[in-house]
């Protein structure tokens, strides 16, 4: 069973298009995240949702909008894609609280290429 899954794994699109990436976790976790890993492999938090509520929104352009229909799903919609959006996007999840709340489990990533 896949704990955190993402679709699609690869996404190639042109500048100006709108695209979505889906994420699902079956770990029963309350908190989900989106990370961006750039070409230099630097992994940076974008958003965090806790029980469908946005709790962290780092400095990310308004073109990026996360949506959480339920606590097992966190989707990422990107409007008006730009070349600089090309990266690997990772979804992750963790428990809500307690000593293990920082142990985050990552999905396989979605490689987005904007041409």
């Amino acid at each position, binding site marked *: 069973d896949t704990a*955190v899954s993402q679709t699609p794994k690869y996404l190639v699109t042109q500048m100006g298009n709108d695209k979505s990436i889906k994420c699902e976790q079956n770990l029963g976790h309350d*908190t989900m995240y989106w990370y961006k890993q750039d070409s*230099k*492999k*630097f*992994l*940076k*938090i974008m958003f*965090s949702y*806790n029980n469908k509520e946005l*709790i*962290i929104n780092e400095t990310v352009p308004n073109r990026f909008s996360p949506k959480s229909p339920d606590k097992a799903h966190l989707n990422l919609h990107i409007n008006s894609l730009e070349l600089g959006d090309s990266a690997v996007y*990772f979804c*992750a999840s*963790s428990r809500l609280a307690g*000593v*293990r*709340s*920082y*142990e*985050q*489990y*990552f*999905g*396989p*990533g979605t490689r987005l290429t904007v041409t």
Partner: protein
Amino acid sequence: EDQVTQSPEALRLQEGESSSLNCSYTVSGLRGLFWYRQDPGKGPEFLFTLYSAGEEKEKERLKATLTKKESFLHITAPKPEDSATYLCAVALNSGYSTLTFGKGTMLLVSP
């Protein structure tokens, strides 16, 4: 500004050649330090959590240690399957469960 620095950026070892990876941090209020392993084309995989100076954790050939300024990931008698990028991350006392990651050390173990 809170920072996490990993060294070296890349490390090449022969099978059986033990070594250590370093993660140094300058943060105010450390809640925990985390090690992850990332294989090419995959998401990071959780390895260890360290909460206080002096703490050690072990898993197979890996041993993580923590001081007040840095953490080491010791690899004893590595095998080719240990080849991966090892990421260090810190969690701060303030805010929610956010992790600040270092840039990683790419380890290659040759047979």
